């Protein structure tokens, strides 16, 4: 809870400092925030949704990306140790926001019931197959999407946290044996550092994938009629 508030404050302060009195020609820290925002715009929203609709959904996708990224970072900060995303609450909230947004995107374009119908019914099928296909499409669109978003983020951060904890506590245990086992601690500390570096990759990749999937789901509900 404290870590969540802390990291939310960090995001807010960073962007406030970066974008305070933003000028056309950026200077100093404004460069960094602009590069970060430009990354989200170029590689996530414009790339997946397209230029026209991408700008409309850029704020929510950028928010989700930076919130996920900064909530992931405590996984490798000594003293904070665990990422808030390793508990179910934070990923669940963000997945529900994505859920509301992609239903809103489709409902705005097609009308709510027409959108649900279009995304559930696959056209040009033999009539009997609809019995089978409609429940599958419904579950995969409206149940499995937020569930897999939540579980993917949570399980990734949790697994990384458990690996790092196990390796560092094994190092501690073996080192204080002061016999032959002490030698093992030098192996585990090297593996622990390697896993910390891998965790850095996972931190960025999971934030990227979360934002990418949010963009993909929004794009799919904007084109609900073309399966």
């Amino acid at each position, binding site marked *: 809870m404290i870590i969540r508030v802390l990291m939310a404050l960090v995001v807010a302060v960073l962007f406030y400092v970066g974008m305070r009195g933003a000028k056309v020609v950026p200077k100093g820290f404004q460069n960094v925030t602009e590069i970060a925002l430009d990354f989200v715009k170029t590689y996530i929203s414009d790339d997946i949704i397209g230029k026209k609709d991408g700008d409309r959904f850029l704020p929510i996708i950028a928010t989700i990306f930076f919130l996920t990224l900064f909530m992931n970072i405590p996984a490798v900060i000594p003293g904070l140790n665990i990422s808030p995303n390793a508990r179910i609450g934070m990923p669940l909230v963000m997945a529900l926001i994505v859920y509301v947004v992609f239903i809103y995107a489709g409902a705005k374009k097609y009308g709510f019931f027409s959108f649900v119908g279009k995304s559930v019914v696959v056209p040009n099928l033999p009539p009997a197959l609809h019995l089978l296909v409609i429940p599958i499409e419904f579950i995969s669109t409206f149940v499995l999407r937020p569930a897999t978003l939540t*579980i993917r983020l949570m399980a*990734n951060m949790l697994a990384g946290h458990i690996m790092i904890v196990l390796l560092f506590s094994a190092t501690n245990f073996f080192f204080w044996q002061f016999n032959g086992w002490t030698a093992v601690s030098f192996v585990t500390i090297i593996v622990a550092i390697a896993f910390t570096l891998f965790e850095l990759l996972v931190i960025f990749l999971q934030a990227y994938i979360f934002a990418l*999937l949010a963009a993909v789901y929004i794009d799919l509900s904007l084109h609900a009629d073309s399966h």
Partner: protein
Amino acid sequence: MDIVTLAQATETSFKGLGAVGYGLAAIGPGIGIGIVVGKTIEGMARQPEMAGQLRTTMFLGIAFTEALALIGIVTGFIF
């Protein structure tokens, strides 16, 4: 006693079934991610100018494939 009641009465004290379950759950996604990344590299080698688009699609494919392995981790903790 027939065999069904015997099987019900047996209580196993075997630890670590969750880890075995995760090991089984990791086989499929491991092969799957291997195929996804391998095919993307093949595509990139044939057409380097498509590399950016292929990379994005590769991450999407990895995300969908990997979900099964992660569900494997979670079920190990729950059941």
